[in-house]
């Protein structure tokens, strides 16, 4: 390898990071949707660009997305499946004028996640391969256990005084039943979307975009429109309210959850981080926000690191699958280059998210939240229409209706993840339910 080639690789990482950072500011746009188009372009002009440089550019995009998507999640309240958990605590921060601090906490978690990936993944090369060989034949059981955990861990909530004991019982169980209804409807939507290409066939690779945006983004935006809140003037602090112990605690929990999610299909960063926060007995929003940042980065970026990790080459996540269409990881040298790319993209993305947040924090309060939410809703609808046509809008509408159930009944939004978990779990268990819904 020559110095020129190495410098070109670094340049492509930077280009990918800048493109990814810019696109990740758009609410509702997932980096995987964009990467799909990049791959289509690459396959038509594949001979022009070196495959390793293309890989590094895509990694730059992915890392920046893992960092920068915090911005639309917090300031525009348009989360994806893995940032939905930070919506409530970050909205509280935003209402206190501490939106930037929330972003810094999440970005710090993400930063530690990147450091953990680049330092610890190579060190645990051997053990990870052994763990994978044990986990691999039991994946469907583990996903089943995750689903069971999600369902069982929701218990009747006591909201305080009630008219009578029966009313208390009804109120307590209402949220659970709403959660189960959300889970059931999301699962059916997932089975349909996974088994039938409803959107135009040439956009089939964007099949999950509409349901995910509907379940998480548009439902949140509609909630914001209903709730009529005000965004106060935001403060730009020079320090954050956190103890190093909280940062470490959150990072370890988040990284563990992210690694768990990166290992397993269907389990996303949110669920992984959420389960890890239970496992590590996390308390408080600060540690939770840090853990969610770490979890998200370890999930997205860790998956690509595991794909290039010698002895493992685990193909998990849409980017690994996309890269594998034109590239097969081979040497330790490539793994070093990927880790180099992750580190460079990590540091750029961190400062991008900090400065983007500072920029928005000083301006966002001037915008009427209703106008902001309506604008974001318009952008999201336009994106879904552009990517998936009117069929996608239809799916998004259904998903939005399902996504509003937990919002209206105060149950967990994590049940919406059944849209991914259930069909993949059924598929891996060898159970076919498509015929129940007249799909074949």
């Amino acid at each position: 390898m020559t110095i020129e080639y190495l410098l070109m690789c670094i340049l492509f990482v930077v280009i990918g990071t800048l493109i990814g950072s810019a696109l990740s500011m758009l609410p509702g746009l997932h980096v995987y949707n964009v990467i799909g188009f990049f791959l289509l372009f690459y396959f038509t002009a594949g001979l022009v660009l070196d495959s390793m440089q293309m890989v590094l550019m895509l990694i730059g995009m992915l890392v920046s997305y893992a960092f920068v998507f915090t911005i639309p999640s917090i300031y525009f309240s348009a989360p994806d499946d893995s940032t939905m958990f930070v919506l409530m605590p970050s909205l509280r921060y935003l209402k206190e004028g501490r939106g930037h601090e929330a972003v810094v906490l999440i970005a710090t978690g993400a930063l530690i996640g990147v450091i953990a990936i680049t330092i610890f993944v190579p060190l645990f090369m051997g053990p990870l391969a052994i763990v994978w060989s044990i986990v691999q034949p039991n994946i469907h059981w583990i996903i089943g256990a995750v689903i069971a955990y999600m369902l069982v861990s929701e218990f009747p909530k006591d909201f305080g005084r009630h008219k009578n004991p029966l009313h208390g019982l009804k109120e307590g169980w209402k949220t659970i039943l709403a959660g189960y209804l959300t889970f059931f409807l999301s699962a059916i939507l997932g089975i349909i979307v996974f088994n039938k290409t409803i959107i135009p066939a040439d956009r089939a690779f964007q099949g999950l975009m509409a349901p995910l945006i509907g379940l998480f983004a548009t439902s949140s935006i509609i909630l914001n429109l209903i709730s009529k809140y005000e965004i106060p003037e935001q403060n730009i602090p020079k320090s954050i309210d956190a103890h190093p112990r909280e940062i470490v605690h959150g990072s370890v929990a988040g990284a563990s959850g992210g690694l768990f999610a990166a290992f397993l299909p269907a389990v996303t960063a949110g669920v992984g981080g959420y389960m890890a926060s239970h496992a590590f007995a996390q308390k408080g929003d600060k540690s939770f926000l840090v853990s969610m940042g770490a979890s998200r980065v370890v999930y997205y970026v860790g998956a690509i690191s595991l794909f290039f990790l010698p002895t493992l080459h685990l193909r998990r996540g849409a980017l690994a699958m996309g890269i594998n269409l034109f590239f097969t990881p081979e040497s330790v040298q490539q793994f070093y280059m990927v880790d180099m790319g992750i580190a460079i993209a990590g540091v750029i993305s961190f400062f991008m998210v900090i400065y983007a947040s500072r920029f928005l924090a000083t301006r966002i309060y001037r915008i009427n939240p209703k106008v902001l939410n309506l604008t974001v809703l318009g952008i999201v609808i336009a994106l879904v229409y552009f990517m998936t046509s009117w069929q996608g809008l239809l799916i998004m509408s259904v998903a939005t209706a399902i996504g509003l159930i937990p919002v209206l009944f105060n149950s967990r939004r994590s049940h919406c993840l059944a849209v991914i978990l259930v069909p993949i779990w059924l598929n891996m268990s060898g159970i076919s339910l498509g015929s129940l819904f007249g799909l074949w």
Partner: protein
Amino acid sequence: MGNNPRNDVGCEGDIMKCPSCGREIPDDTVLCPYCTANVKKRIRLNRIYAVALSLLIIASAYSILSYAAAGIPVTKIKDLSMSDDRNFVRVKGYVVDYPRVYEGSYGVTALVFTINDGTGDLTVKIYRSVMWKVVSERKVPGMGDLVDVRGTFFYSTTKSITLNNPDYLVIKRPEFSSIRNLTALSNSPPWAYKNGEGIYLTGNITGVREYSWGYVLSVDELLDVIMPRAYVSLNITNLKNISSGISRFYGTLEYYRSYQPSTLYPVYNLSTLLSDPEKYNGTSARILWATVVHKDEANNTIFIDQNGTEICVYVSSGVRYYDVGEHVELQGKFEWFAGHWEIAIIRESDYIIEPKWELIAHPQCELVERKSYEATTEYHLYGLMRVEGIVADYTEYSSGSVSITLYNASYPGCVVNVYVEHKSSISGLLQSGSKVVVRGMALIYNGDWEIKVRAYTNDSVEVIY
């Protein structure tokens, strides 16, 4: 940003601004009464930025590592173990088996061959898109080639490596020396050549037999050339093309023995046995190379000669397969029987075979001189002929071959003998009285001319009516 008063966090008399939310709070407070943030114990952003910048050190370290990482070292096959499973490895070795293909309803899906580096065997697998690139770059190996291959190692009951890129397959072909006398080669003893020796020769394909692993091409009826199915299925070798004239075949020699005995007795020369027969009486002996000089089917015996020394061999079954002039290898009991010394092949571990040299073809076979089917009444050995005639008689054999006697007044005796290697070469319904056009090769069989319609070539029998 600089004009925003909330950015200036600090004391203003006994009032300070909360560093988190920016609201004014008493300066002796620990927790902000508005946002509950701890005002005293905080982490400065500069420290977090410093941690972020430390990533640049990690990036630099990885860039140095990737720059300095050397090429992949060659690994011995015996050293590949479970810990290398799915690792990218590099192995060098000789191809010890001819390439095989996996074919299904979707066509050829994989190309597979085995290499050996002196420490063990390793299967190399090449799938679909990479396989076709390997074919287009003429990188399909032949038996005896030295290959340097890099790919993903899979540890299983058999060790295998999957090639991901045609560039990671480097082939060094053996030196091919010319063989001009096919008769001498076919009559050569096992020590005349070395197994795996690279040679090339020219000749006519006089017969084609198909097996699951490939085709056996008889060249000038003297030498069998083994054409692996892989070459035909991957369109590297076109049987119809190379059978339409004189072709050149490249490959490696292999001494073919149809039977691999489970027990090997000591090798003796006939002269040694017969110089002191009493000493060797009852000895189990192995004779590597001898020529059949006489056959007595009634008594199940043949007589073999080795360098002028003859002996009787009793073959308990199958004596009819060994004709005078053929070379045999045998293993049996040397003993005195009915007034003479003989070798008796009667026990389960005994055997008699007709070993021979074969050529395992390499992919670069080529047509040297094209011939066309000529409508002539004169026979030329290995000439391609086009003959019209009326079917006087025909016999179909269980093996799928057909022998036809054609009536044509232009030929000696008004008869043309046609031998069809496989009935798939016949188009139309063949019956006595049919008029047919035969395209085939002129050969001599049992002293008579015949036209052989070779299978899987352009030869054919076309039924006119």
